[in-house]
């Protein structure tokens, strides 16, 4: 029915099946939209946030999707600046994931603020000292970059490509893509960092506060680094999942291996840096504010020391070891497990740096603050997931996201007939 729109030389599932799944995820999306509208029209009383939890699930979701969406900028950086040419075979998908992540982040931010209609004040009345201003500027600029990177992909749709103007536009954009990518990498470096800075500069919150250089706390660099490490992990993970669902190979193994190796080294160095940071914080920074390290990990089952072990050892050390060793990478289940843990590590880190910061009491006469999100918060957080799946479904079906797909398919057919 829609075969005219499907890229040439590849197979797609039936239109009916496609629509069926689209409707399923559309329903989830709709649920999220209802929740979103409730928040906009009735206000943030729809959430379970309170004056102790000014930042909660949404800010975590924001930080997490941006961290795992870091694959786009880092792969772009590797491909366009460092000339890792093989990565051109995964860059489209990385860009798509990045686009989904960043658009989701912006949407969540638009729901999260108390006065969405005044959201643009962050630009207009910008306070250049605020990490959040830096986040907002770089985030929206980088989203513009991602859009620019995503547009040529859309234009490559079989029907659109027929229009000469779009064909030429797409061609020209490819021509200057390196400049866009470089700008994007620059912007991304800063907003990933400033998201880390958001927590790190809170000198009123000893759990979050870190020393640093110039205006940037250590978390600034750690966040950028971890996004560069975990973003590619997430890209690989989603690629693997897509391959499992479509039941075919979409990216050649050498591409994945290269990306996994680089991600592994990034993750390993990040983990070392994170351990040093944690050590210094636990023994110098926090005690200076009068806090015992274990003060931060006691009193309640959620924020026990296990969360630190999970973040650093299970989601840092272990996947690093797997990814930097050839043997580790060779076994598919180890590789997938490692990239999963890597992406999870970034999410746990963001959780800790947002929610545990709020939970830890600072005034001696207050106690731990616990919070559980309302359904509206959960629905609006799941909304981007449904939206992401739908956008991947549509993009995969109609756009040449995976340049190697046709080749691999043809080889497979050839091998059958040989």
């Amino acid at each position: 029915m829609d075969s005219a729109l499907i890229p040439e030389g590849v197979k797609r599932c039936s239109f009916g099946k496609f629509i069926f799944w689209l409707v399923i995820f559309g329903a989830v999306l709709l649920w999220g939209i209802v929740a979103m509208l409730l928040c906009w029209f009735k206000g943030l009383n729809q959430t379970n946030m309170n004056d102790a939890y000014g930042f909660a699930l949404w800010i975590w979701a924001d930080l997490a999707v941006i961290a795992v969406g870091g694959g786009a900028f880092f792969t772009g950086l590797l491909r366009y600046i460092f000339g890792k040419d093989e990565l051109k075979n995964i860059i489209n998908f990385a860009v798509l994931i990045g686009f989904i992540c960043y658009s989701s982040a912006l949407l969540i931010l638009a729901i999260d603020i108390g006065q969405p209609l005044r959201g643009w004040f962050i630009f207009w009345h910008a306070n250049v000292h605020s990490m959040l201003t830096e986040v907002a500027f770089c985030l929206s600029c980088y989203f513009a970059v991602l859009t620019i990177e995503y547009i040529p992909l859309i234009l490559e749709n079989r029907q659109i490509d027929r229009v000469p103007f779009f064909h030429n536009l797409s061609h020209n954009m490819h021509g200057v893509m390196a400049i866009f990518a470089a700008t994007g990498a620059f912007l991304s470096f800063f907003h990933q960092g400033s998201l880390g800075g958001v927590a790190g500069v809170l000198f009123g919150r000893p759990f979050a506060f870190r020393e640093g250089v110039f205006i940037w706390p250590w978390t600034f660099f750690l966040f950028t680094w971890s996004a560069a490490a975990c973003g590619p992990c997430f890209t690989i993970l989603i690629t693997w999942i897509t391959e499992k669902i479509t039941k075919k190979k979409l990216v050649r193994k050498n591409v994945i291996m290269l990306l996994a190796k680089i991600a592994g080294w990034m993750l390993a160095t990040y983990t070392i840096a994170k351990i040093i940071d944690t050590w210094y914080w636990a023994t110098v920074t926090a005690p200076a504010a009068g806090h015992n390290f274990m003060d931060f990990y006691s009193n309640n089952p959620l924020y026990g020391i296990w969360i630190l072990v999970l973040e650093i050892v299970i989601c840092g050390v272990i996947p690093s070891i797997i990814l930097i060793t050839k043997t580790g990478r060779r076994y598919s289940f180890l590789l997938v497990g490692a990239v999963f843990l890597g992406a999870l590590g970034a999410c746990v880190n963001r959780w800790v740096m947002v929610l545990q910061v709020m939970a830890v009491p600072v005034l001696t006469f207050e106690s731990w603050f616990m919070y559980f999100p309302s359904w509206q918060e959960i629905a609006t957080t799941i909304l981007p997931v449904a939206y992401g799946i739908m956008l991947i479904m549509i993009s995969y079906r109609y756009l040449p996201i995976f340049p190697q797909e046709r080749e691999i398919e043809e080889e497979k057919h050839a091998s059958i007939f040989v």
Partner: protein
Amino acid sequence: MKEQHKHTKAKKYGMVIDLDKCTGCGACMAACMAENNVSFKKDESDKLLSITWMRVYKLTNGKKFPEADICYLPRPCMHCEGDHGHAPCVSVCPATATDYSHETGIVSQIYTRCFGCRYCMAACPYHARYFNWWDPVWPDGMEKYLSPNVSPRMRGVVEKCSFCFHRYQLAMDKAYIEGRRELEEDEYQTSCTQACPADAIIFGDLNNPGHAVTQIAKPDHKHGGRPMNPNAFRLLERLGTNPKVYYLSSRRWVRRAGDNYIKDERG
């Protein structure tokens, strides 16, 4: 964070709260609500959703009967000076909706500018900032008592104690009309200070050696305003927030409750 150079001398308005005198009666809280058009709703028992610019905490010494002891601690906004006006909340506000005035030392909040990101709330270790989760609603007829000097806040913005800044403005206006550029100590007092039946709250200019606040707290401006009065302390002094609210207590456990100490640390 703009430095404003006016002809007047720079003030550093601050407060001393005598916890030995404070009886926990709550008058400061109500005085604040009445002065500043603070809204209320049906259930205010969830203190994490209850806007109280001035909140009185009840501290306990953690001992068993009959050694148990309690102390009340009123907590307005600390109007932190941080390092040269680098208050925890001011520097993080992305929209410049909150500002440290070098003219008065007061941390302001512009409600029409705030777009409700709540970063300042995350930054404030004193929980002195409150978010308008709901539209403020006054029961039919009760809006008649609202003061024209303080605008009621709309849903979706952050609010907090302003040291009754409008009173400063009114006092300054009056002084200017009378040809004066400086205020007398009693011309500008916050609502809570005025109401306190125990006279436990003292308010004034910490830069002015003649003001009672300065004489009692004896702030050491060379060392970030640290009090030289041995019974005086500030909340979470070690964080470097440099608050302008000082507390007095003759009880050691109360003074120690003002800050965190690592195990076996003396303080």
